[in-house]
Every structure is written in structure tokens, then in C-alpha cells.
């Protein structure tokens, strides 16, 4: 019976889609946690070079200069905030028991796309355009507003194109990250359909608010934000 039984319980064949959007079928718990922590440290380090902040659960912003440790703290707060709220949501919504290490691991691995988002901001065109935008900021907010022709007369077109492309890539990475976060939560807590979607969205919103407040508080306390 052994061959017959093994044939009957063989998992579905691995495909690119299943590996990219639901890697948690194959890896979770401690292994996912180790890989995810590595990816988060890499994202924070690259972010510190390209001045890319992951200042929330879903946020990606560029520009503000800060010490390297702050980039790591931002990433860790975003991750732990979501883990905490998903664990609470899981306790309420899940009908079976789950392990905290699975939520920690899957949510850490789900943040992998941040590495690519941070790397995109390393492109010189993106860096130059960010500096240009920061330089233009007072003109954009002045009262009375500047004439559009004056605002954009020295617009570096090539850099603007690279910047726009980088924004699209960042948006795609964020969508991919949210899809991974959802799959990680659903697999860790054995949740499906409405129950999974509603509890995930609620936890995501709560985690975003909590992470944002914590990051701003740390930035203000340490003088990074005035």
C-alpha cells in the first residue's frame, strides 16, 4: 500500500507561481525566520545607503538621512507590529491552534521584496531626481504657488523616467509583499476565504497605525525628526 498511499498524498507540483506567491507551502517556521531576518537586514542596509525608509508595515519612502541603526529599527518595528496583530487576529479567527514561530517566520520572509525595492532606489537617476524634488519642495508649497512653467522648466526628463519606473517597481514589490503576508498568515493559522481576508485586513490596518506611531516617536526622541 505504501506506493499507493504516497501517490495519493503527493503535494501538487511546484510551479513558479506557487514558489513566488505561496512559498509557505514549502518553507515556514524557523527556516523562514532565518531567511527572512537575513533579507530584512539586507533591506535595511541597502536602504541606509539609498536613504530608503520602510517606515511602517507597507510604507516605502526615500529622502530623509538617518543613522544605519534607524533603518533596521524601522524594518523590525514594521515586521513585529504586523506579527503581533496577526497573532491576535489568529487567536480570534482561527479554529485550530497555530505556532507563533510560523507567523514570525512567514511574515519575515514575506518582507523579502523590500530588498528589491531598496535596491531600486540605489539607481543614480532615482537619487538625482529625489534630490531635485527635495530642492523643489519649497517652490511647490510656496504661497502664492509658482507658475507650472517655472516649476518644471529644468525638469531632468531622463531621471524623471527612471524615477517613475522605480516607483512602478516599488508598487509591484509592495503588492507582492502584501500577497505574501496574506498567504503567510492564511497558512500559519489555517484560515480561508472571508474569515482570513477580514481578519488580515483588520490586523494590517491596526499594525500600520501602531508601527507608524512607534517609528515617529523613536525618530522624534532621537532627534532624527524635529
Amino acid at each position, binding site marked *: 500500500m505504501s506506493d499507493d498511499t*504516497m501517490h*495519493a498524498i503527493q503535494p501538487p507540483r511546484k510551479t513558479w507561481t506557487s514558489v513566488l506567491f505561496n512559498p*509557505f507551502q514549502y*518553507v515556514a517556521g524557523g527556516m523562514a525566520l532565518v531567511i527572512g531576518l537575513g533579507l530584512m537586514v539586507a533591506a535595511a542596509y541597502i536602504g541606509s545607503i539609498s536613504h530608503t525608509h520602510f517606515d511602517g508595515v507597507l510604507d516605502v519612502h526615500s529622502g530623509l538621512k538617518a543613522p544605519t541603526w534607524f533603518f533596521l529599527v524601522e524594518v523590525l518595528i514594521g515586521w513585529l507590529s504586523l506579527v503581533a496583530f496577526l497573532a491576535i487576529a489568529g487567536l480570534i479567527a482561527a479554529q485550530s491552534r497555530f505556532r507563533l514561530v510560523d507567523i514570525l517566520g512567514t511574515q519575515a520572509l514575506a518582507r523579502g521584496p523590500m530588498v528589491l525595492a531598496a535596491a531600486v532606489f540605489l539607481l543614480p537617476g532615482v537619487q538625482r531626481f529625489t534630490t531635485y524634488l527635495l530642492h523643489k519642495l519649497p517652490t511647490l508649497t510656496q504661497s502664492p504657488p509658482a507658475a507650472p512653467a517655472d516649476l518644471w522648466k529644468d525638469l531632468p526628463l531622463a531621471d524623471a523616467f527612471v524615477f517613475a519606473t522605480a516607483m512602478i517597481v516599488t508598487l509591484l514589490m509592495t503588492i507582492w509583499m502584501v500577497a505574501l503576508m496574506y498567504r503567510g498568515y492564511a*497558512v500559519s493559522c489555517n484560515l480561508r476565504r472571508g474569515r482570513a481576508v477580514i481578519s488580515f485586513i483588520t490586523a494590517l490596518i491596526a499594525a500600520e497605525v501602531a508601527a507608524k506611531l512607534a517609528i515617529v516617536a523613536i525618530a522624534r526622541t532621537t532627534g532624527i525628526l524635529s
Partner: protein
Amino acid sequence: MKLLPRVCPACDEDLQVKRLRCPTCETEVEGAFGLPGLARLPVEDQAFIWEFVKASGSLKAMAKLLGLSYPTVRNRLDDIIIRIKNADTQRNTLDHSVDERSDKTHE
């Protein structure tokens, strides 16, 4: 060997065993025998339980055997537990209604 059908292809009700035969002496026993609980589960669930018992009930060993993550395997087991509980409830309800009918007949 052919797979044992569990439900009626016409009305989807659980099937019963009507006749059993000894392959050695060809003795046949006829009656209305209910399938055991495990045999009423889908083939994949029976196979999972078979391998799970062989692995001493270790989900970690099952995860390694199937090349899947621990929560994925545990979710599969949870789903089987739910199906077994539902089958139990269904069976109890059925037994209860049969008992009630036979009580009324005796009255």
C-alpha cells in the same frame, strides 16, 4: 486493485457493503454492512492517516516526507479532523433518527 467507492454515484449517499467473499474458499457472506469510519474518508485522507501513523504521529516527519512546510501538513491534518468530526455528527444524527423510528414502530 480497484478503489473502493464510498458514495452512491446516483444520489451521493454513503454506500454499504452487501456481500463479502473469501478469495481462498469462495465462501460468501451476504448482509448489510456499514463501512468503517476511516474507509468512508476520501482516499487522500486515508493515505495521509496511513503515513501519519507510520511516522509515529510526527508532523515534522510528515512534512519532511512530503516536502511541505510544517503548518501546511498540520492544516491538512486539521481538515481531516474536521471531516471526521462532521462524519461522526452525521452518523450520530442518523443513528438517533433510526432509534426514534424503531421506538415508534414498537409503540
